[in-house]
C-alpha cells in the first residue's frame, strides 16, 4: 500500500469522526427542538430539515456519495424522482382538504 493511499485513508478517518460528532449534535438539537412546543407545521419542517442534514452527512461521507461514479448518481436521481412522486400521492389526494371518500 502506498504512503499516499495510507495518508488519504487517515484523512478520511478524521472526516468520519467529525461527521460522528456533527450527527450527535444534530440528534441533541432534534430532541431539544421537539420540546419547544412549536406548532405542528413548524415542528415538522424543523425536524425534517435536521433529519435531512443528518441523512445527507451519512450518505455523503459514510456511504462515500461525495466522490461516487456518475452511474450511481444517475440511479439515485431516478430513485429520488420516484420517491418524491410516491410522497406526493397523499398530497394530491388531499388537495381539496377532504378525505379520500369525500
Amino acid at each position, binding site marked *: *500500500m502506498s504512503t499516499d*493511499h*495510507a495518508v488519504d*485513508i487517515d484523512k*478520511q*478517518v478524521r472526516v*468520519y*469522526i467529525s*461527521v*460522528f460528532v456533527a*450527527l*450527535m449534535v444534530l*440528534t441533541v438539537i*432534534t*430532541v431539544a427542538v*421537539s420540546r419547544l412546543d412549536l406548532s*405542528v407545521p413548524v*415542528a*415538522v419542517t424543523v*425536524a*425534517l430539515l*435536521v*433529519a435531512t442534514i*443528518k*441523512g445527507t452527512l*451519512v*450518505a455523503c461521507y*459514510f*456511504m462515500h456519495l461525495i466522490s461516487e*461514479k*456518475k*452511474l*450511481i448518481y444517475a*440511479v*439515485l436521481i*431516478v*430513485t429520488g424522482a*420516484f*420517491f418524491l412522486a*410516491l*410522497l406526493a*400521492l*397523499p*398530497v394530491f*389526494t*388531499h388537495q381539496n382538504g377532504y*378525505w*379520500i371518500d369525500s
Partner: protein
Amino acid sequence: MDIPYTVEIRRDTGLTNGKIGIWLFLASEVMLFGALFASYILIRTGAPSWPRGDTILDVRLATFNTIVLIASSVTMVMAWASLMRSRFGTFRIYMGGTILLGLVFLVVKYFEYTHKFHDGLLPSTNNFLAIYFTLTGLHGLHVLGGMVVNAYFWGPGAKLWKTNPTWFTNRVEHSGLFWHFVDLVWIFLFPTLYLL
C-alpha cells in the same frame, strides 16, 4: 466459473458489479420505505386527530437507540477503513463492535415492544400504533439482516481476506452501504414517529 468484475472495474459502468448491485438494491429499498412513509402521511393527514409520538412512545429509549445506530455506522466505516489500511485485526474489532451495537439496538427495541404489549398497546389498537409497529418492525428486520451479513464477514466469510483481500474489502464496503442505509432510515423514523 468466477463471478465477473468483483475486483476489476467494468469499462461501461466504471464500477464493480457488486457496487452497482448494492446501489440498485438500495434504490428498491428507498421505494419500499417510501411506500410506507407515503402511507403514514396519508393516514395521518386523513385522521381527525393524531397523537404526538412522545405521549405514547419512550423518547429517551429512542434517542439512546439513535446514538447507538449512528455509533454503529461509524464502527462500520472504520471496519472498512481498517481493511483499506491492511489491518485485519482492527477490522475484526470494529466489525464486532458494529454487530454488538446492532444487537443493543434490537434489545432496546424488544423492551420497547414488550412494554407496549404489556400495556395492551397493539398494532390493532389504533392507526398510530399500526404504522409505528409496521415501520419500526420492518426497520428492525433490516437491522437483523445487516447483522447476519456482518457476522458472516466477521466470521466464516473473513477467510476470503487471505486469498483475495481486495474482493473482501469490496464486500465489506457493500455490506457497509446497506448498514448506513438502515441508519439513514432510522434518522427519519425517529423524529417522524417519536417527536412529531
